[in-house]
């Protein structure tokens, strides 16, 4: 029958006439239910709406969720005449397109004169939202249930607790049930009815590192500083504080006394000046000329005179302040929760803090290893050119930069990040290898016996390359995007985590170490390199071409710098100055580790990375200070071990 009606309606609409909106199912169960609570719903008062929402929620009607949603979205209207509820969309200011609450069939387009919009206020919308969560929590789709659970976690409300408990009883998915149970306990901590229930929930979280647990527990142990003659008995006193201790300074304690009216305020310089200014009479204050009040002593005298005249309030002297402080006790009172709950929360929190410390230490170690591997990566090319060949290459940082820009350029042509990175690594090696060989041929080979001039000449190359990069790529930072599988981090728990890029850099560092060892110790090239480094003339007479070997070695070191550049570019932004950020640290790494020994470089990088992270941990706000102290430490370290951690001995040291 309704279908017929609909057909007629449709026809009427097509003909261009707007029919009065009567074509709806007035007897549908949901409409009936709404009518039962019609007045409460229309009135929209927070006090009386509860039963109506509960009735809808508990009705078990499939349409109830839609009604709640659209009601919350202010899309439900009520016919003034019949009192029937409809869903409606506003077409323009005066016309509505209305739908049946049961089944959401379109009824027609009507003028809005005969309809009242239901406008639930934010309080009621919150209640509806809480009721809706129940539907979402029992939704057949696990993804919807999980989303609803997250919504509760973001914005917990007392009303969620019962909903959650009901949903928990029926949850089929074990993993989701576990998350629900956890959320239920978190809600119990905050909104549980009995203290025993809350304490039980609190104690269940002992040793849990979740940020949400700490967020739930911390408000419970909130305290207020209070003062009294004697410490009140009872569990609500969290602790007694001694004025002048670290937790409560003398000034703060006295300020509290002043606030409570238990002591006179101390005479601050500003207040003294204000009182004196207020009492200037004919160029005199308290019998002293204004012009002479340019010292504190003179002002004190004038103020004392004012006090004697009874114009000014006597200030608390030090003795009086001491006496007042001695006469009172200061203590903190729990205000966040009943004392028993607060005490339980405090005990659990202490346990959690301890394990947080342990985990933070673990995280710090991971950070240190990661920073160390970045330093190692930046320094390993230098370990070859400087450590093995003894060539100071100030343009090493610019080779790193060149590698990173190579990666950037490749990504402009190859959109797939995985392919582009795999392509960029050999390409970066090729580019910087070529640059290194060119530099060795053109500049360095003329200067092998003048290390200081090598330093200067390569510095000239360095500033030229840096400016060249600026001219080509501009001054803004260029992104080098990591492939998708390197996004995110390996999470051990809420505190200990490490991003996959850092792991990749660590792996790459290890790989480089292996390649270096392999090339130097297991190949013909490595053998010849070692021979040429020790004694070029002797090596030459053995049929090795020292020129060629030097060229290849330098190219090899530069090429590795290029690959390091790709890795560092993934982790930091690519700029023309990125090389100079690493150059001093890289040299430090090689020098601290011990020139000519790759294991030394590894140790040096580890030590510098570890120390820097440790100093940062001691003074977290200030990475600049950490770097400063790091460098000072290195300067001192070189005093005690001038040849680095692992010093070469014997004939190799002379080379």
């Amino acid at each position, binding site marked *: 029958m309704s279908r017929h009606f609909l057909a007629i309606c449709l026809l009427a609409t097509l003909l261009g006439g707007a029919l009065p909106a009567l074509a709806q199912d007035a007897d549908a169960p949901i409409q009936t239910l709404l009518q039962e609570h019609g007045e409460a719903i229309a009135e929209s008062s927070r006090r009386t709406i509860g039963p109506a929402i509960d009735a809808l929620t508990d009705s078990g009607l499939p349409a109830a969720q839609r009604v709640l949603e659209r009601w919350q979205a202010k899309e439900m209207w009520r016919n003034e005449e019949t009192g029937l509820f409809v869903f409606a969309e506003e077409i323009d200011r005066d016309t509505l397109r209305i739908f049946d609450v049961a089944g959401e069939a379109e009824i027609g387009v009507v003028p809005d004169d005969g309809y009242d919009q239901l406008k639930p206020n934010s309080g009621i919308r919150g209640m509806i939202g809480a009721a809706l969560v129940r539907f979402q929590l029992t939704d057949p789709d696990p993804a919807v249930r999980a989303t609803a659970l997250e919504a509760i976690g973001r914005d917990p409300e007392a009303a969620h607790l019962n909903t959650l408990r009901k949903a928990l009883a029926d949850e089929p998915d074990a993993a989701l049930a576990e998350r629900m149970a956890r959320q239920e306990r978190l809600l119990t901590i905050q909104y549980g009815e009995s203290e025993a229930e809350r304490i039980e929930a609190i104690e269940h979280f002992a040793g849990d590192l979740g940020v949400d647990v700490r967020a739930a527990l911390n408000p419970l142990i909130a305290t207020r500083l209070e003062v009294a003659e004697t410490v009140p008995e009872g569990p609500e006193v969290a602790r007694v504080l001694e004025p002048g201790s670290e937790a409560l300074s003398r000034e703060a304690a006295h300020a509290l006394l002043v606030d409570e009216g238990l002591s006179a305020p101390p005479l601050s310089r500003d207040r003294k000046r204000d009182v*004196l200014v207020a009492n200037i009479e004919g160029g005199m204050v308290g019998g002293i000329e204004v012009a002479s009040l340019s010292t504190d002593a003179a002002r004190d005298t004038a103020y004392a005179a004012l006090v004697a005249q009874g114009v000014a309030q006597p200030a608390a002297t030090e003795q009086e302040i001491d006496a007042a402080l001695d006469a009172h006790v200061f203590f903190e009172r729990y205000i966040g929760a009943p004392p028993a709950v607060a005490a339980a929360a405090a005990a659990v929190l202490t346990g959690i803090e301890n394990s947080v410390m342990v985990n933070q230490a673990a995280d710090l170690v991971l950070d240190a290893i990661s920073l160390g591997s970045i330093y190692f990566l930046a320094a390993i090319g230098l370990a070859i050119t400087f450590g093995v060949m003894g060539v100071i290459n100030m343009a090493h940082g610019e080779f790193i930069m060149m590698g990173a820009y190579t990666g950037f350029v490749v990504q402009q042509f190859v959109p797939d990040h995985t392919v582009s990175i795999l392509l960029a690594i050999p390409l970066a090696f090729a580019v910087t290898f070529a640059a290194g060989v060119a530099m060795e041929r053109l500049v360095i080979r003329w200067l092998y016996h003048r290390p200081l001039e090598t330093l200067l000449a390569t510095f000239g190359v360095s500033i030229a390359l840096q400016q060249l990069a600026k001219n080509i790529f501009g001054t803004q930072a260029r992104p080098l995007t990591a492939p998708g599988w390197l996004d995110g981090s390996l999470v051990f728990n809420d505190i200990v985590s490490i991003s996959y890029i850092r792991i990749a850099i660590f792996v790459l560092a290890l790989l480089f170490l292996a390649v270096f060892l392999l090339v130097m110790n297991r190949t013909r090239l490595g053998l010849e390199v070692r021979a040429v480094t020790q004694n070029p003339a002797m090596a030459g007479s053995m049929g090795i071409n020292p020129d060629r070997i030097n060229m290849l070695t330098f190219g090899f070191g530069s090429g590795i710098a290029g690959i390091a550049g790709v890795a560092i570019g993934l982790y930091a932004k690519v700029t023309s100055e990125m090389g100079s950020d690493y150059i001093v640290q890289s040299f430090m790494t090689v020098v601290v580790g011990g020139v000519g020994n790759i294991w030394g470089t590894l140790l040096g990088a580890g030590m510098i990375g570890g120390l820097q992270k440790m100093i940062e941990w001691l003074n977290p706000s200030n990475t600049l200070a950490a770097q400063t102290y790091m460098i000072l430490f290195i300067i001192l370290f070189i005093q005690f071990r001038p040849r680095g951690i692992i010093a070469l001995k014997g004939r190799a040291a002379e080379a």
Partner: protein
Amino acid sequence: MSDIALSPGTRRPLVARYPALAVFMIVLALFTIGVTILSEGFGIGVISTSFVKTLGKTLCLCLVALAMDLVWGYCGILSLGHMAFFGIGGYAIGMWLMYARTEIIVTESLAAAPLPPTPQEISDGIAAQIFGVVGASEFPPIWAVAHSLPLQLLAAVLVPGLIALVFGWLAFRSRVTGVYLSILTQAMTLALALYLFQNDSGLRGNNGLSGLQNLPGLDHVAQSTVSLWFFWASALALALGYLLCTWIVSGKFGSVIRAIRDDEARVRFLGYPVEAYKLFVFTVTAVIAAIGGVLYYPQAGIVNPAEIAPIASIYLAVWVAIGGRGRLYGAVIGAALVSLLSTWFTGGQAPDIDLGFYTIRWVDWWTIALGLSFVAVTLFAPKGIGGLVDLVTERKSPQRHGADLGPDPGALREKEADE
């Protein structure tokens, strides 16, 4: 000639032994007089005040280049930290300039207050003015003597001197030499710059100290006049510095430090306290550099940590190398030429070169040209521009009989030993 050098009693005067000294002094004096006549402040106004300042600053850079030449060209210590000492000098004078100027402003503003200000109130007012930008309002201990010009000037000399002394003592004592020492000095410079970059260093973080061109209490004096005062002071300092350096490198002391440059171990075996010599040169040059900074930064108007960054010290080495190290006038020529050219090219005044398909804009390409020309100088003209003087005076290379005279063919050891 060598017998004369060995017998002090029959020594000729310094000027006679070093004709370059006389030439330099005359050129400097003529230059100073010329600039004064052409200036806006006291002359016919051909040279703008800002260019007078640029020239004055260049003279200060020449002074620090002299120091660099002494420590590197003569003593063989490639220090990459002398611009840090230069910067510390600037900070020291900047602290007084800023304090004194702010004091005048604060005193004026407090004069309107109903009560005459106490010293404490003035001090608080100054601190709030100076440190407002870094969110602090109290004087850090480092500003303890900022109110006094003589004490602050003393600090400008003592602080870099002490840093150089301690650092040098640590480094030379443990026999850190050559490139290692260079890297170590560079690290020291970097540490200092990073320290100053912090907001809680007490020196206004990366804002640095600014407004230094305004001399406290001398607001009524035009900048055209002030610029000339500083120009004269810089010229005088350069003249005295040149004299001092010439005196140091002459005589036995000079021979010893040149010997240290050429073969440190041999000098040590001969019984000379090599470390003490090096330490002396390092410290004295640090002080000279700091004096250069004291005169430079009031002309520049601002000093900030970026000025101390290692790159500045490396540029200093570049100037000296291009000018020709191991000869004092070389350092002066290099510093003056390169810094003035840099100002010209990076200031956008140099005409762009249109190649048809590409326009070379010097602002972008000057640094590249400088870097490459520096490589070229190192490779092909180790004597630098100063080497051209040899062509004029027909000073031939010393007869080395084919022997390599040590690691540094750029310097003329035998000739120098003769002098």
